[in-house]
């Protein structure tokens, strides 16, 4: 199972090199602080649906 996870992470990094820095930051946290969780929370809320789908046909809002 561990080998499978490692290989899949390697694949993700291979197809999306930009993800490498994010993974490196995430896995370097030995003891997440409240500030780390807050940063993660901010990352979740950073992008709305409209940011991902600029060609959306949905009405704004």
């Amino acid at each position, binding site marked *: *199972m*561990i080998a*499978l*996870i490692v290989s*899949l*992470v390697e*694949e*993700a990094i291979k*197809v*999306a090199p930009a*993800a490498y820095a*994010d*993974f490196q*930051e*995430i*896995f370097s*946290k*030995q*003891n*997440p*602080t*409240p500030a*780390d*969780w*807050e940063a*993660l*929370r901010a*990352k*979740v*809320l950073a*992008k709305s*649906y409209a940011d*991902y*789908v*600029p*060609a*959306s*046909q*949905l009405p704004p809002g």
Partner: protein
Amino acid sequence: MNSSQLQSLVRLLLNTISGAIIAWTATKSAPTQNVGDFLAKFITGPDVFALALTFVAWLWGHVNHSTPTVPEQPAGPAAPISPRLTGPLMILLLGCGLWTVDCGLLTGCSSTPQQVAYQSAGTTIVTVDTAMGLWGAYVAANQPGTNAEAKVKFAYEKYQTAMTILCDAGTVYSMTASTNAASVLNLAASTAAQDLLDLENLITACGVKLTP
């Protein structure tokens, strides 16, 4: 209640039960001193049952979402979406599973539950970012219609809500490290995992090819 709602209810039930068992185990078990002790306790403990329940829930979800459920407008030419999402989505699923595994299996016995949860949550965020980016490209190329878009938008916002609750639970746990906080963290992780699965299944059902 239609069949889709019934499937979601079954998966949610399985995830909730497994999360509750793990929370109960975490509050009852004594810390282990080495890998051997941990593995022995893990193999003989109720966590194995909980982990099995989680995987059954995943399997259930994938089997029952293999047929598109969203009525689609006639699609144009196939979208030029590469199958590169397969790996990240597998990581997403495995990452969710790791939420339900006691510390030690992946990162060593010195890892805390919140460290495992933090790493899994972070991995999930990166993965969903990729998935939503591909969905945006799919919409631009295929115009799947407002009905499909509205469903994905709702699922994405539901995922955001679940993840913010998880992050809040992680914040509380990091400040208190209480057993109650651990239970809330596990429950929040289970809910977030369910919402992530729903989002992934919906994107697949809408026509984005995720496998080669």
